[in-house]
């Protein structure tokens, strides 16, 4: 018998007319690595919560969920909120204390977990000293210490930067392969997990649309936009076997092109000549005796373009944005913004700008003319969110609502901090459309982002911050084409095969032309 057997599960939340889950049947065997994907709000999280009895939502439920074990671990999205105690060692012991284990038993398990996850050095630290990636790793470790047989993860890496996300997923793969723990995960980063997954379940509007192996799933149209690059390119051509990884993608591309080298021509972006913000020789540190976060940064931000600041963790990207937004003041150097240009910034956690009870009230707080509000609401397509509490919105929805507020303020320079964090690809595309329309109105857009794929597609200029300095600055296309590691997967697949190809669309275009 399968470890998890879901039979005709139908579920509806109280006071809602729409059924959240429709007639779902699914069986999962022991040790399988299952990826659940689909658009935001398609019922993934609801389905996952049904597998963990204590978290199962209340509502009208039909059908059955049969589990052969009750040892189930559940990792949630937000790294911060899952932590309960103040010390790392105590967090690891928390679940074990709840199980009523004796101290010496707990010590044994804790030692095991700390070694497996390589977190011995943190044991004595306070939990709030850890970075987001470390916190999520701690959450995973403290759940693994309870020896679950099934591990359920609800978008565990959506709040993490790419490097921490990679580390997290690698560890997860080890747990699955070395310990034989069943893994059920929902993710937007299919690029990293498709190569290791056994089974992919695609959901749409509360139904399972497809269940199959990763290489077969390319045929399902619904998730086309979030497929790994190699698969996305393949799905347009459909020739030979479906590649999943970058390596397989390169091999497939060479075969498809009969070992010929192609080149695509795109017009080059001119050097900008009109600037809005000018930063000159800026030095910044948070405390008097602290280290310099920004060291001698000089930067000119082009007017009326989408400008992106990228860089590794703790390189000073967000700090730089704060300095432009004038919420922090450099101790040396100058930030020059022409007097007639107004500026406004959206924080990384956009929920922090909502002060009122509903989305509509929040909009009204900023601008009192109904006409303008109506116009913006229509532009953003948020009619259905107006009466909701801002904290009830999903990640993408709150990003939209906050952007609507920003548009009402109508500044000339708009700053975004990681605007695509935690969004699925459809939302990202919608957001990109909004950015474009803002650009066409002559607004300057500055964003800090890790999201290479998004920037490669939609940014005009990119600057990389490294070690508190600007290490490179050029038009986004050239920027990512010249990089080897810090670039899109499509570029890595096409490097040396299709010259000048940066996005999947570039490669597809070239292949279709053939």
């Amino acid at each position, binding site marked *: 018998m399968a470890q998890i057997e879901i039979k005709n599960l139908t579920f509806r939340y109280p006071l809602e007319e729409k059924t959240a889950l429709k007639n779902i049947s699914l069986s999962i065997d022991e040790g399988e690595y299952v990826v659940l994907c689909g658009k935001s709000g398609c019922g993934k999280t609801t389905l996952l919560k049904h597998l*963990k009895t*204590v*978290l199962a939502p209340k509502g009208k439920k039909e059908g059955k969920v049969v589990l052969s074990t009750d040892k189930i*671990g*559940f990792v*949630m999205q*937000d790294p*911060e*909120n*899952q*932590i*309960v*105690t*103040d*010390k790392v*060692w*105590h967090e690891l*012991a*928390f*679940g*074990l*204390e*709840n*199980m*009523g*284990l*004796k*101290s010496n038993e*707990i*010590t044994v398990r804790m030692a095991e977990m700390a070694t497996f996850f390589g977190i011995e050095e943190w044991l004595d630290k*306070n*939990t*709030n000293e850890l970075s987001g990636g470390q916190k999520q790793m701690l*959450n995973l470790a*403290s*759940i693994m210490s*309870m020896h679950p047989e099934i591990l359920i993860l609800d978008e565990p890496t959506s709040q993490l930067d790419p490097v921490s996300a990679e580390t997290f997923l690698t560890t997860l793969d080890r747990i699955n392969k070395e310990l034989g723990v069943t893994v059920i995960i929902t993710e937007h980063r299919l690029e990293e997990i498709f190569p290791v997954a056994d089974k992919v379940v695609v959901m749409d509007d509360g139904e399972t649309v497809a269940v199959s192996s990763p290489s077969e799933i390319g045929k399902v149209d619904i998730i086309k936009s979030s497929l790994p690059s190699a698969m996305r390119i393949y799905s347009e051509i459909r020739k030979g076997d479906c590649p999943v990884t970058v390596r397989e993608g390169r091999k497939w591309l060479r075969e498809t092109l009969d070992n010929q080298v192609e080149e695509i021509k795109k017009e080059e972006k001119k050097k900008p000549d009109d600037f809005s913000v000018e930063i000159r020789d800026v030095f910044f540190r948070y405390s008097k005796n602290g280290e310099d976060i920004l060291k001698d940064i000089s930067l000119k931000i082009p007017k009326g373009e989408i400008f992106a600041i990228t860089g590794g963790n703790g390189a000073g990207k967000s700090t730089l944005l*704060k300095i432009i*937004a*004038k*919420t*922090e003041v450099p101790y040396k150097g100058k930030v020059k913004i022409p007097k007639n240009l*107004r*500026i*406004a*910034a*959206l*924080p990384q*956690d956009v*929920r*922090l*700008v*909502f*002060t009122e009870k509903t989305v509509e009230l929040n909009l009204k707080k900023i601008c009192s003319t109904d006409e303008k509000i109506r116009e913006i609401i229509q532009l953003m397509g948020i009619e259905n969110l107006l009466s909701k509490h801002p*904290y009830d919105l999903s990640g993408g929805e709150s990003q939209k609502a906050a952007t609507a*507020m*920003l548009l009402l*303020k109508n*500044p000339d320079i708009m*700053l975004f901090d990681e605007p695509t964090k935690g969004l699925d690809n459809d939302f990202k595309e919608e957001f990109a459309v909004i950015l474009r329309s803002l650009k066409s109105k002559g607004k300057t857009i500055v964003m800090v982002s890790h999201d290479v794929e998004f920037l490669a597609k939609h940014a005009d200029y990119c600057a990389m911050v490294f070690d508190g300095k600007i290490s490179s600055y050029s038009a986004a296309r050239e920027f990512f084409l010249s990089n080897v590691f810090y670039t899109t997967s499509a570029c890595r697949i096409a490097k040396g095969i299709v010259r000048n190809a940066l996005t999947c669309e570039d490669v597809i275009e070239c292949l279709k032309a053939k």
Partner: protein
Amino acid sequence: MATGFKSYHPWVNVMFFISVITFGMLFLHPVCLFVSFFASVCLDIRLKGKKAVKEIFTFILPMLVFVTLINGIFNHYGMTVLYEISNGNNITLEAYIYGFVLGLTVVTTMLWFFCFNEIVTADKIMFVLGKGIPKLALVVTMALRFVPLYRKKYTEISQAQKGFMQSDDDKKILNRIRNAVKSVSILVTWALENAIQTSDSMRARSYGENKRSFYSRFRFTKSDGFVLLLITIADIVVAICKLKDGLYASYNPYVIINSQKADGITYLIKEINMMINPLSTFEIVTIAVYILLCFLPLIIDLKEELNWRRLKSKI
């Protein structure tokens, strides 16, 4: 890593401090007072080094002088009049002596608490609390996480608001208060919202399903047992002495040190109305035990240090 007395089990540490602080307040006998005072001074210096010396000279000793003088000026009991003030009150020797005794008790207690702070760290307190009231201990650890978390979030919120609104109304106090209130209100909403997730995470890790056990990283070793036994024996000896009215001292209306005994020599100093009775054998034993008790952490530290030196010299 903690060494010496600091590395001992929380029970041993706590038991020691309960003993010395209680006895320090109960015994007004000059010998006991001085023993406890010097022991606490030595331990404080041993733990904090130069900082302790500075503290003693700038705070502890002035405090002692202050209490002595204040008591002498405002209390007028006692037989030995030093001089009379114009309103008819007497300034007496007993008031000064008692003031000094009182001051010594106060500063000794303070010094012991200083040492307590150094030795009984937060996680030791959590351990003791957890053994007694596990639920409260959990609430405290959760609160300890919340304090820095909320502080950080508050800064984040006010910066987000500032970056978004971009208004220059910060100069007026009223506006600044209004902004702060707004930030706090956002913080509260945020905290409540996130608390739901934390509670989900707790339930997902079987919180509330079984009886919780209490995990601590402290192990009770043989030497912990030995030292705890020493402290207990010392406590019993000293307590018996106290119950039998041993090591008696009275400062009003005149100074009497030790209770009257059938044999031995009693000193009477007529000029200052002081009576010093002889010590009984049990009292002498008690003083020895008391010295041992008060200096126990220092003895342990010293022993460990000598041990190290010996081991090193062997290599």
